[in-house]
């Protein structure tokens, strides 16, 4: 079967786009991606979005956004998997091209979090958990992450500032990403002074909610000239797995089984081993998720993920560079669009276009997007083609 490659991509800045609506923000990313792909016209649009139906009172995004982008008539549907929505859309696009059904596909991640503010926003966000048995108890995603982090710290004897390494690394990298919401490095003292959100989670353990749109054009490799303007990026592995929706239904809450399963499959498909991976874009919506992802994928042993971050192992010159463009923490967390941002950032690294944040000569990138506490985990391996 033929290879599926990323031909072009485009992204908006991540932040609060008060004056730009869902359709216009989407179009900005789509337009940039299609231009970057040399004007290639996609045969389908797969939209990854989490909450537009609630926050913007707008469902049925496929036709709306395809039409607004001048692509009226093409196949256009939304795929929802909470925070992993656009990663799931990327996988759908990959499968469509891989199967031979389609030659070119457009993937769009879009989230307009700022369309609703106040407690109604928190109510909407909580709908991604088990409504009858989690959300009804007043549980929010950040409180759930706090429950995990507290237990993790209890079992592994983590000091109070043990998770600082995740935020410090993310912010250091965000400083070099002009699309990031936060472009300033922070010092350990600032982390230590961070206000509590839900104990033991402080403000620096939580990625900021933001608006953003990010788009990628996928195509079959044979259709493309070998002398295009940009190096091609191959999707060398793609896998998705699910776990229980409710965290409390798991026998072992401190291991992200779906993250483990999907990463294992994606890496096997790429026919590589873990130590060939040059960078890892993880889903650090909370620092505890980052720690558990490192452990579940296998970069750290159980209970030691926080140490890898504390010891500099996830820095750009570390054992496994993570959040190389700021991650969700510093680039910002645009909900279901996060996975598309990860894919673009990894592609920037593989193309050699990450500027100040460039990692030396990377060949393989692992990207992993989570819905909820890894109730969904979608993992891709991207490979630079020379």
């Amino acid at each position: 079967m033929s290879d599926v490659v990323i031909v072009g991509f485009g992204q908006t800045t991540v932040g609060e786009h008060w004056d730009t609506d869902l359709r216009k923000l989407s179009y900005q990313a789509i337009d940039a991606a299609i231009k970057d792909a040399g004007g290639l016209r996609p045969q389908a649009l797969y939209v990854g979005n989490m909450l537009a139906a609630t926050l913007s009172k707008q469902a049925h995004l496929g036709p709306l956004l395809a039409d607004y982008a001048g692509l009226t008539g093409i196949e256009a549907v939304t795929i929802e998997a909470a925070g992993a929505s656009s990663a799931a859309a990327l996988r759908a696009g990959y499968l469509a091209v891989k199967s031979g059904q389609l030659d070119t596909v457009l993937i769009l991640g879009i989230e307009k979090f700022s369309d609703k503010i106040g407690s109604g926003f928190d109510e909407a966000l909580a709908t991604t958990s088990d409504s009858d048995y989690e959300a009804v108890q007043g549980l929010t995603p950040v409180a759930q992450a706090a429950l995990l982090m507290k237990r993790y710290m209890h079992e592994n004897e983590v000091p109070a500032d043990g998770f600082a390494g995740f935020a410090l690394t993310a912010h250091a990298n965000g400083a070099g990403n002009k699309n990031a919401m936060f472009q300033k490095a922070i010092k350990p003292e600032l982390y230590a002074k961070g206000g509590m959100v839900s104990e033991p989670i402080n403000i620096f353990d939580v990625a900021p909610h933001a608006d953003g749109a990010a788009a990628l054009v996928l195509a079959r490799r044979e259709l493309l000239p070998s002398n295009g303007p940009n190096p091609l990026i191959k999707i060398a592995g793609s896998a998705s797995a699910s776990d229980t929706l409710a965290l409390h239904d798991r026998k072992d809450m401190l291991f992200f089984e779906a993250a483990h399963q999907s990463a294992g499959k994606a890496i096997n498909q790429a026919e590589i081993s873990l130590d060939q991976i040059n960078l890892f874009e993880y889903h650090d919506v909370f620092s505890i998720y980052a720690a558990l992802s490192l452990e579940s994928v296998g970069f750290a042993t159980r209970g030691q993920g926080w140490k890898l971050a504390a010891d500099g192992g996830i820095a750009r010159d570390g054992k496994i560079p993570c959040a190389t463009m700021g991650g969700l923490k510093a680039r910002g967390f645009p909900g279901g669009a996060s996975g598309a941002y990860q894919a673009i950032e990894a592609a920037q690294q593989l193309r050699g276009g990450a500027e100040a944040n460039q990692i030396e000569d990377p060949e393989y990138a692992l990207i992993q997007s989570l819905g909820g506490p890894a109730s969904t985990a979608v993992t891709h391996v991207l490979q630079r083609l020379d």
Partner: protein
Amino acid sequence: MEIPRHWRLKQQRYRLVGEVCQHCESKIFPPRDICPECGGEADTLYTFSGNGEVYSYTTVHEGPAGYDDSTPYTVALVKLDEGPTVTAQLTDVDEDSLQIGMPVEMVTRKLKNDGDERGMIVYGYKFRPRMAVA
């Protein structure tokens, strides 16, 4: 208004009615049609004792709509004596005395206001420090 959504769960919300698997005897909460332990069909009701212990806990300072009047409140993962874990608020508890492993018992309390003053009040289980243990 979401009356049917809450009404149909009254056995779970007020009495912790789950299931016991006829094949492997696992206790299951909430009820589900397939036993998560053995994969067999599960349909025999079982009422939990309501006793358990705190697996983890935290405080919510910014609550979702319907809960914002009751902030700050404490949510926990409570491991029931019979096996399953549930997510629930803790109530009647002194924050400073809270710790992982603390024995708790189920009580019925108001969970949220569904809508304005004419909306229904949703009641359900919360947990408090176990009275019998002293």
